[in-house]
């Protein structure tokens, strides 16, 4: 049984737009779905969820070998167990926050939602109505409501769209934590330039209703939790190639992530939070300065850095030649607890 979500669609939606694509998404970790607006990202997610089917559509969807749509049989949206978070929160305005959270849970025989309430800091909001919630709070409730229904896959359709930078920064850590802790695979619609793309294990690129390609995970490092300081975890970059563990002795970062001792954390590093210099930059305000080697000066997918044995793609490197020593200043990271084996 393939651990994938396989699909083939031919959906004529207007004179100028037809979604015509087929593909297979691995059900491990986070798959970003990226493309210009109007390219069909939302249409794809809604079609996969079985929403707005029309006569004349050709649709075939298989989830872990089970037919959701097509000749193999049809599964209605309510039986697909998708945790769908839309661009706007669409909270149920005639219910309290707690009733919103329990709506899906009740229908899937889930009684304990404490873990989700805690992970998303929703306890103080529970008795409130949804009208008075701030934008960031409403997004957290929408995310919690989807997670509380015990989904087997998450569909996140730009769940932070419309929030200003401050609100985004407020919700982002919750989102990263929830996605990491839920241990369910996620499809995440986002703009390629978004910081959130840093969370993705791979990116499906879409243009004009068709798949235009796949992109590997952007720059990230795997670290292990070696201690705690306040709410934060102290993470040490793992040596990927089994080199001397002492090599990572100085490579410790204090990261706002909730993870236990010994657990792995995936540290996504946004493009603009990564500085590469030929000489050690000296004491500075970066989270960490890590030694690295240029593994490939100009590989087929661009330059590749070797950081403690972890090979990661970067946009550009200094002209020092392959094997050349460089220093990596990491200005900030987007941590994601790594509870599954999505990187193995």
């Amino acid at each position, binding site marked *: 049984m393939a651990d994938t979500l396989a699909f083939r669609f031919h959906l004529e939606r207007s004179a100028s737009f037809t979604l015509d694509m087929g593909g297979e998404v691995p059900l491990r970790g986070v798959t970003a779905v990226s493309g210009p607006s109007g390219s069909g990202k939302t249409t794809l997610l809604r079609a996969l969820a079985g*929403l707005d089917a029309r006569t004349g559509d050709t649709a075939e969807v298989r989830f872990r070998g089970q037919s959701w749509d097509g000749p193999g049989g049809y599964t209605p949206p309510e039986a697909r167990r998708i945790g769908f978070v839309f661009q706007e929160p669409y909270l*149920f305005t005639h219910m309290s926050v707690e009733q919103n959270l329990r709506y*899906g849970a009740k*229908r899937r025989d889930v009684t304990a939602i404490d873990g989700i309430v805690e992970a998303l800091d929703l306890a103080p909001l529970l008795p409130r109505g949804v009208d008075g919630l701030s934008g960031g709070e409403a997004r957290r409730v929408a995310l919690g*409501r989807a997670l509380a*229904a015990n989904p087997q896959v998450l569909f996140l359709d730009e769940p932070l769209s419309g929030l200003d930078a401050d609100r985004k920064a407020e919700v982002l850590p919750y989102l990263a934590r929830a996605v990491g802790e839920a241990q369910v695979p996620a499809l995440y619609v986002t703009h390629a330039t978004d910081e959130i793309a840093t969370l993705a294990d791979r990116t499906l690129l879409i243009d004009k209703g068709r798949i235009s390609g796949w992109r590997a995970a952007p720059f990230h490092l795997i670290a292990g939790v070696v201690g705690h300081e306040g709410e934060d975890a102290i993470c040490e970059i793992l040596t990927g190639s089994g080199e001397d563990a002492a090599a990572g002795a100085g490579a410790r970062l204090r990261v706002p992530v909730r993870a236990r001792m010994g657990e792995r954390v995936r540290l996504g590093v946004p493009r603009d939070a990564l500085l590469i210099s030929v000489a050690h930059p000296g004491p500075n305000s970066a989270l960490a300065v890590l030694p690295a080697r240029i593994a490939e000066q100009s590989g087929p997918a661009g330059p590749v850095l070797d950081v403690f044995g972890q090979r990661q793609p970067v946009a550009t490197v200094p002209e020092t030649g392959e094997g050349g020593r460089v220093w990596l200043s990491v200005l900030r990271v987007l941590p994601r607890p790594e509870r599954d084996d999505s990187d193995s």
Partner: protein
Amino acid sequence: MSLWPVISLTLQLAAITTIILMAFAIPFAWWLARTRARIRPLLEAVTSLPLVLPPTVLGFYLLILMSPDSPLGALWLSATGETLTFSFTGLVIASLFYSLPFAVQPLQTAFMAVPQTTIDTARTLGATSRDAFFSITMPLARRGFLTAAVLTFAHTIGEFGVILMVGGNIPGRTRVISIEIFTAVETLDYATAHVLSAGLLVFSFLVLTVVYALNRNGGTRIG
């Protein structure tokens, strides 16, 4: 002379009409609010016709439809032994047409104000379409339900022209308040006309106040 038979008959007519019309209008308005079918504007126009047609026109066609010479009227006559015209049943049928837009339009508007994505969210959370209708759509559209029921009831009570055409003026069977007022004025019984007219005036004013109060609160709670 007691006015009670007239008032009682009027209330019965309004209540029965409201119940039947709501049972029909809820699924119909839901369909109108969601369908992409090309026939929709046509059905919306038909639904709204009673708003613009003179009641005499509507009454005339209903009279033809229900007369013992027509297939429907003949069928009714052979089945029950009574004519459909100038009967209480005939009044109910006429009222169903006459008050149709007052039931359908508030419901349709309320259903359209419930975002499709809110319903989709409920579906992905495990609700069947039926479950989502009762747990999400109906509570969110509750003001539309109240408005539709109240307006249908009130409008049926105030009906005159259509009733005169298909029901006539038979005490205990088709003589409703509005007809009674007409009869009273014709016979110069202004006292009766005053009592019934003032009653209808106050009733209608209260009903409209309730409807507008409901709608004032309704506009702000979408999304």
